[in-house]
């Protein structure tokens, strides 16, 4: 005798308890602290802050812990938390020209004012698993690095692209009006065609994997724009706000960002002599590969305004911007797990009818 399915509430409660147990894992193993995640998995924290669109290392670390290391899930947690936060102001635009750089490189010149500063990077490591790291107990502390007296120019080196700009070799970056209202993607939906500010915001929060794939595609000919890494810089910038009561800017903190400026395919005509064009990427934290991919995609999406005929999906603004958000993507892909049996029943009825009409298998 069939009894209608019940007990959804109890099932969910039990599922939550099981999740909590599995999150903790074997209780003989020490529990992770937020400080450990922040310090020793700092690039994961950086990514969660960037795509979660919220700069707070502790919260990001907590999200990673709660999400059992699933960064997509952690990003979702941070975004949902962000929704509940009140806004009390808008900062001045950060000035990456005044960044305290920890890493700064340029592929377009061998040497330049401020120098090439490698910083800490995986780039020249050999990807060999280091079993000393598996040690558990701290084996040997790395010896403190002797730093040379800092070159003053190294602290806030001039921008490479400004050097090109002064010679008129690269299209100018239009000087922004700090008081102009910029569209805010977290408050309003994007409409197409989208202004560049909206595109950049979308890409800044976009999924790193998706952007890497799109950027890679441009390099392989899908919307090729002939990029050179003009400058990549990582470091701290000051965040400033003008409180109403004071009327002048005060620094409310510093954040770490990674910025990439690409020098792209030049263009010119009879009326306008040749100039290089730009692509721009900026993210929270140290994720320079995301900033680079973002700059490639930014440039690809500028094709129309630069007089190029878009031919590849990487240059299709609706395609790129509608699918870059991994919270949206993950939700919708996974929503297929939800019951769809009512709609499926509707299809079953139709397919059975069509088959009956065609003289195929009998109806049940």
């Amino acid at each position, binding site marked *: 005798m*069939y009894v*209608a*399915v*019940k*007990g*959804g*509430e109890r*099932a*969910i409660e039990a599922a939550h308890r099981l999740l909590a147990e599995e999150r903790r894992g074997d209780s003989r193993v020490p529990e992770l602290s937020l400080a450990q995640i922040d310090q020793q998995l700092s690039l994961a924290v950086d990514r969660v802050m960037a795509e979660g669109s919220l700069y707070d290392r502790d919260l990001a670390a907590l999200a990673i812990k709660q999400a059992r290391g699933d960064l997509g899930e952690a990003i*979702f947690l941070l*975004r*949902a938390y*962000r*929704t*509940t936060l*009140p806004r009390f102001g808008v900062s001045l635009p950060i000035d990456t020209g005044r960044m305290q750089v920890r890493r700064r490189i340029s592929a377009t010149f061998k040497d330049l004012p401020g120098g090439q500063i490698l910083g800490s990077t995986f780039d020249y490591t050999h990807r060999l698993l280091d079993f000393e790291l598996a040690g558990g107990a701290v084996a040997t502390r790395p010896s403190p690095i002797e730093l040379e007296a800092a070159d003053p120019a190294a602290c806030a080196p001039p921008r490479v692209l400004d050097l090109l700009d002064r010679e008129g070799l690269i299209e100018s970056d239009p000087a922004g009006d700090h008081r102009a209202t910029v569209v805010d993607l*977290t*408050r*309003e*939906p994007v*409409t*197409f*065609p989208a202004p560049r500010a909206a595109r950049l915001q979308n890409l800044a929060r976009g999924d790193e994997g998706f952007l890497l794939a799109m950027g890679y595609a441009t390099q392989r000919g899908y919307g090729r724009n002939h990029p050179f890494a003009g400058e990549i810089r990582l470091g701290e910038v000051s965040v400033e706000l003008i409180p109403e009561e004071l009327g002048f800017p005060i620094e409310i903190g510093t954040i770490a960002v990674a910025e990439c400026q690409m020098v792209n395919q030049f263009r010119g005509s009879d009326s306008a002599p040749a100039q290089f064009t730009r692509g721009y990427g900026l993210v929270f934290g140290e994720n320079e590969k995301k900033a680079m991919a973002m700059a490639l995609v930014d440039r690809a999406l500028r094709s129309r305004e630069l007089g190029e005929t878009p031919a590849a999906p990487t240059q299709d603004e*609706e*395609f790129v911007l*509608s699918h870059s958000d991994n*919270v*949206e993507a*993950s*939700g*919708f*892909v*996974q*929503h297929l797990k*939800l*019951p*769809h*049996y*009512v*709609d499926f*029943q*509707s*299809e*079953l*009825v*139709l397919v059975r*009818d*069509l088959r009956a*009409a065609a003289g195929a298998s009998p*109806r*049940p």
Partner: protein
Amino acid sequence: MSRYNFAYLDEQTKRMIRRAILKAVAIPGYQVPFGSREMPLSYGWGTGGVQVTASVIGPDDVLKVIDQGADDTTNAVSIRRFFERTAGVRTTTRTTQATLIQSRHRIPETPLAPGQILVLQVPIPEPLRWLEPREAETRKMHALEEYGAMHVRLYEDITRHGKVAQTYEYPVIVDGRYLMRPSPIPKWDNPKLDRNPALLLFGAGREKRIYAVPPHTSVRSLDFEDHPFEVERWDRPCALCGASDSYLDEIVVDDKGGRMFVCSDTDFCAQQQGRREDGEP
């Protein structure tokens, strides 16, 4: 949950959503863009519906939440609990006792009454999406009432299958003007949209659109004069309550192909069973 505002969303956000709802009601069937917020549920799992409900719900409301017509499916349970925790409102499984109903994929069988609000969860709001992927283009098509492509789609179905192949999310014309996708309700539920005395609200969180059908508005399912719109049929009544005027779920009962058909609307079925026991027709 006391650190969160009533029904989770802050008042500014609710105001923004209510403005979008008012605009939607003023232009029946038209998709109003809104600043959808990230919610504690995944996109695709009802965030649009939840935001609409959170913006219209008040402490005196009585809330019913269903998914696939049932109150006890996991997502309905999850959403109902969300509002119990963040709004503390009374909840019910009885359609007749609810002031506010949030639903995924079904309209309740029990007719709605004036003053009730039905909130439907929408995955893809744009009815022309499969014909034209670009938003910039579909916006223009709606503005210019250029719906020929949709009729071409129906014509093609009849040519290929002898009948229209759309079985759920069946496109409708609202108030004689806007082409609308009524959320993934089965065709069976489309007639309930027409001149319903309740207010019907549609929320798409991921796609960031809200639309509405105000009470007593005409909603017509697209068809041809010689291929009129028709709903699903079953050749047997509900095995539990005997109703033959309700949408039925197909349950597989054994591995020999045994099947049983049961009302999808669990409240309706329970009421019918109660009436049968009382000897009513």
